[in-house]
């Protein structure tokens, strides 16, 4: 296997592992904030208890998120030294600012986790969460601008190999930034809510049918619905962005070869690689035109108008479909749950519905993974679209393969232990004995 490919796999593995923790890291502060707000607003201690229990588990995932995030920061230079040497001249500003945002978040998270009974009013403890949520949101924002820059680099000119006319802010606020940042944030809020909903539904299915769990499920499903819809709206805008700035990614995602108006959206199917014919796919007439241009008659550039060496791997069609499919399923599921709650309260605790909600947690996280695989593989062969390919940037150090083995073992171990430790924590600290307590002792 060539070195560049090994470097890609290792970096992909790190990113794929880190994104699970990073997603929760971005989403959880908002969830905690909403739970604590509900507790104060409804004068209901159970919401505060919910926040407290979530925060306990969160302290585990944050730890793994911090260390894997450190790995990403260093691996960027270790595996793609050529990238930072050139791109670092233009895009190091947001990377640098990301550490400040994270610093800010870490300080207030430390304060939040250790001051449950320090303040006289719960409101003060809630206020500590605001910088945590802002810090984690800003972290996600800064780091996503770097990824956006890799897709639509701007803010510099190359003169005989030298980089000149550098404009760091223009590089940060490149055309991909708005949709990418919005998609990352909304999907993180959505996924965190659905993951917690899944755990809650699991407890309810196992017979824990008290008000605490019901409140938790209602809260998380409602938050999930709001952000699932927001994610879909941003996804639609991302389609228009891709059509305008990265047409090859959209075309490859849709197996769209002929440039034409009234283009159909293809779901699933198989591709005949010799004739580029698509079979067995579900055709949604004119929908690709709508996704790309907001008009059913819009013209969508096909792969045939793009030099073949710049085609992304065509397999990304499946990653795209899986991401969108899961997103749509989650909107439907959470909408059904919220509708039942309003109009058919008896169905709210239906076993089948709860079962699907349990499934929805891992599915949402998978959608995040599929989305990132789609985004990253869809940029191939470029690391810096139009300027530098991944192979040009990758390291020439021959030991990438053994490092790949080393990190695979570490991630497997950490993944298993995270689950093990969280399950153990939940088992050892059942919520039921705490529910009667009217006071704030634990």
């Amino acid at each position, binding site marked *: 296997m060539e070195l560049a490919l090994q470097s890609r796999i290792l970096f992909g593995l790190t990113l794929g592992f880190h994104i699970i923790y990073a997603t929760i890291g971005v989403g959880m502060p908002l969830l905690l904030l909403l739970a604590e707000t509900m507790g104060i607003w409804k004068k209901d201690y159970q919401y505060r208890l919910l926040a407290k229990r979530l925060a306990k588990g969160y302290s585990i995932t944050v730890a793994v998120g911090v260390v894997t995030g450190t790995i990403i920061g260093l691996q960027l230079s270790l595996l793609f030294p050529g990238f930072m040497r050139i791109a670092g001249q233009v895009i190091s500003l947001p990377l640098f600012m990301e550490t400040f945002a994270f610093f800010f978040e870490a300080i*207030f998270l430390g304060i939040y986790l*250790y001051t449950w009974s320090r303040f006289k009013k719960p409101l003060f403890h809630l206020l500590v969460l605001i910088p945590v949520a802002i810090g984690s949101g800003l972290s996600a924002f800064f780091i996503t601008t770097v990824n956006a820059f890799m897709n639509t680099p701007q803010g510099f000119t190359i003169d005989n190999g030298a980089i000149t006319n550098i404009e760091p802010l223009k590089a940060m606020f490149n055309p991909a930034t708005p949709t990418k940042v919005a998609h990352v944030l909304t999907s993180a809020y959505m996924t965190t809510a659905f993951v917690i909903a899944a755990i809650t539904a699991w407890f309810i299915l196992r017979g824990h049918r008290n008000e605490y769990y019901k409140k938790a499920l209602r809260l998380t499903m409602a938050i999930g619905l709001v952000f699932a819809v927001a994610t879909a709206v941003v996804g639609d805008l991302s389609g228009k962005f891709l059509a305008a700035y990265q047409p090859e990614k959209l075309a490859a995602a849709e197996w769209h070869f002929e440039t034409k108006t009234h283009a159909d959206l293809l779901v699933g199917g198989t591709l005949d690689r010799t004739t580029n014919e698509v079979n067995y796919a579900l055709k949604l007439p004119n929908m690709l035109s709508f996704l790309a241009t907001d008009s059913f008659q819009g013209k969508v550039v096909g792969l045939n108008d793009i030099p073949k060496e710049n085609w992304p791997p065509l397999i990304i069609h499946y990653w795209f479909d899986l991401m969108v499919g899961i997103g749509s399923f989650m909107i439907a599921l959470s909408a059904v749950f919220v509708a039942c709650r309003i109009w058919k309260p008896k169905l709210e605790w239906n076993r089948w519905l709860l079962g699907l909600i349990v499934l929805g947690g891992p599915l949402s996280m998978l959608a995040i993974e599929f989305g990132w695989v789609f985004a990253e593989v869809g940029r191939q062969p470029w690391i810096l679209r139009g300027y530098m390919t991944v192979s040009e940037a990758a390291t020439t150090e021959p030991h990438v393969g053994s490092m790949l083995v080393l990190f695979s073992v570490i991630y497997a171990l950490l993944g298993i232990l995270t689950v093990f430790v969280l399950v*153990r924590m939940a088992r050892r600290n059942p919520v039921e004995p705490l529910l009667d307590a009217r006071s704030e002792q634990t």
Partner: protein
Amino acid sequence: MTTEGLGISILWLFLYGYIIVASIDFGAGFFSYYGRITGKGEIINKVISRYLSPVWEVTNVFLVFFFVGIVGFFPETGYYYGTALLVPASIALVLLTIRGSFYAFSKYGNPNSHLYHFLYAATGVLIPASFSTVLTISEGGFIAVEDGVPRFLAGNLFYSPYSWAVVFLALVSVLFISTSFLTYYANRADDPQAESVLRQWALFNSLPTIFASLLVFMALWKHNPEHFASLMGNSIWFILSFAFFLNALRLLIVKRSYGWMFISVMLQFFTAFWGYGKAHLPYLLYPYVSFHTSVTNPTMAKFLVAAFIGGMVLLIPSLFLLMRLFIFNAKYVKGKLS
């Protein structure tokens, strides 16, 4: 001051900050495990846990800040060190990962697990050893450049007396910095038993830091005479460092003013670190990367400095709040607030 001078000074200060807070953290992990196996765990662990719990993540950020900053200000360093140090840096990352996650697993998940605690403690000794080798490598002779591609010469590093002298210095420094801080903290916590144990450890590690520094000087004289000569030119910093050390030692012996004692230890390391860094320039990697030629473009440098100032305006009050709530809050330190 030139932009590159300003940049490297900021980064050097942050690296110093990391060395102090991380030493406290690494040493604390080591001693909490030591206390556990020798049965003195109860006393020391309470003190250590109260300090560490709210601040451990902040420690890690200092490190990330340093390497993101150095690659930002001096992109060439990322290229040279990045290519050459894939294997050693990956190993250091794995250690850091084990430490961070097992701290959380052990602290929040399963406080009784011997294995988690051991991994957390052992990595605290191995990480400073492995990080300190990066400073060794920067002295030159461990990275060769063939056809413009940097290669790491692992054998040279392993058989170099200089490299081992630095590792030794790193280890005793970690233990000295952390025990002197914890002595102060135990004293604040009104925990005389813990204080007396920690004070003995601090005394035990005090002279070895000076001994190890002398070893490093001698080994560097052999390894990189040019840098050694430059160190001698900056000897005022090392004389100052020794004076601060003597003051710290005096206060430890007479059991007085532990706060000033720890400040003296911090100044001991600050002056030595500053003198070392000053003498190290202009090279960031001897003799390939100089900070004059590897600095990023002036536009980006300006933005980075501006971002730094903005970041500090935000961070300094936040750090101050964190310290007020935990480290310098008498009630919290004494365990009266949860």
